[in-house]
């Protein structure tokens, strides 16, 4: 039976943005290509694509088939290709996963790109709770564990973490996001599968890099697998929710959740 993929209502075929990424990453599997095409088409249709600076679909089977940024899929740090370190495994369905002790990636993204007045942030898909024992509620925001920053040397802290209020109704699996609402320089809103939790505190350091899958360079790593990361700016609250919904649907289509 043929696999029928809808690319987004505005597209009779796969959007060129998706094709470029898939070709540059050497992704040939038709099932994966179709779902990436659909996801990108949905972002374009919904008007969220222009807000995205970074989108990693996590559909590769190795570091080199997983490192490019879909929004600008060229092999340079300036285009936010990510680099991997430590123990990381790659699977299009099971996700990109650290080993819980050493694995991380660096997006090269500097959060100074997110001005305080604009709506910026990140949304990540966590596919499984893993076995690292990291409790989401205990630490306020799971995103803080993943969207990590490194200040030169051994001091690590959050770019958009710093959240000190536990999120209610959270679990370790699902779509997570930490965002800065437009026009609000202090308030951070966390979205979990479309549920909005307000009044979380955070801060931003403009000189930091964002890390994924590790909290710091010495001991706090996680093995929760990831199925996609978006970094965006100048987005409305409605667009932030739409980004989360599209990425959630992408993971459903991929058979990840």
């Amino acid at each position: 039976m043929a696999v029928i993929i809808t690319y987004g209502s505005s597209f009779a075929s796969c959007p060129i943005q998706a094709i470029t990424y898939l070709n540059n990453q050497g992704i040939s599997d038709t099932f994966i290509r179709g779902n990436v095409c659909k996801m990108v088409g949905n972002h374009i249709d919904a008007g969220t694509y222009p807000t995205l600076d970074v989108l990693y679909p996590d559909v590769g089977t190795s570091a080199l088939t997983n490192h490019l940024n879909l929004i600008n899929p060229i092999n340079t740090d300036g285009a936010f290709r990510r680099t991997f370190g430590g123990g990381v495994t790659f699977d299009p369905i099971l996700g990109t996963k650290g080993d819980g002790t050493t694995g991380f990636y660096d997006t090269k993204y500097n959060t100074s790109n997110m001005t305080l007045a604009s709506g910026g942030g990140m949304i990540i898909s966590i596919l499984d709770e893993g076995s690292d024992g990291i409790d989401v509620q205990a630490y306020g925001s799971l995103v803080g564990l993943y969207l990590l920053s490194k200040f030169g040397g051994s001091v690590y802290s959050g770019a958009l973490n710093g959240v000190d209020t536990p999120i209610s109704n959270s679990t370790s699996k699902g779509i997570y996001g930490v965002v800065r609402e437009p026009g609000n320089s202090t308030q951070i809103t966390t979205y979990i599968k479309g549920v909005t939790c307000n009044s979380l505190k955070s801060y931003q350091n403009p000189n930091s890099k964002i890390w994924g899958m590790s909290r710091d360079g010495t001991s706090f790593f996680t093995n929760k697998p990831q199925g996609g990361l978006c970094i965006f700016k100048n987005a409305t609250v409605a667009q932030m929710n739409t980004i989360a919904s599209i990425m959630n649907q992408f993971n459903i289509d991929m058979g990840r959740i």
Partner: protein
Amino acid sequence: MIVYKISKSIAENIRGIEYAEGITFNPIEDINSNWFVSEIQLKNWTKNLDLFDVEDLESIEYEPIPIENPFIA
């Protein structure tokens, strides 16, 4: 979790070196001041690098350094 102990000097030498295409060694220190690499790094080591002998490494149980609050700057 079982990890593989290396010396501090080896850790400093291999940090940032690619052990496979697109991914680098990332040695970590545990609570007992042991430096180590994880099993996945050794298992997926495909690059021809004369850095250390895997057979000589002692396996130890990973004991992380506790962190009271991961969100404190």
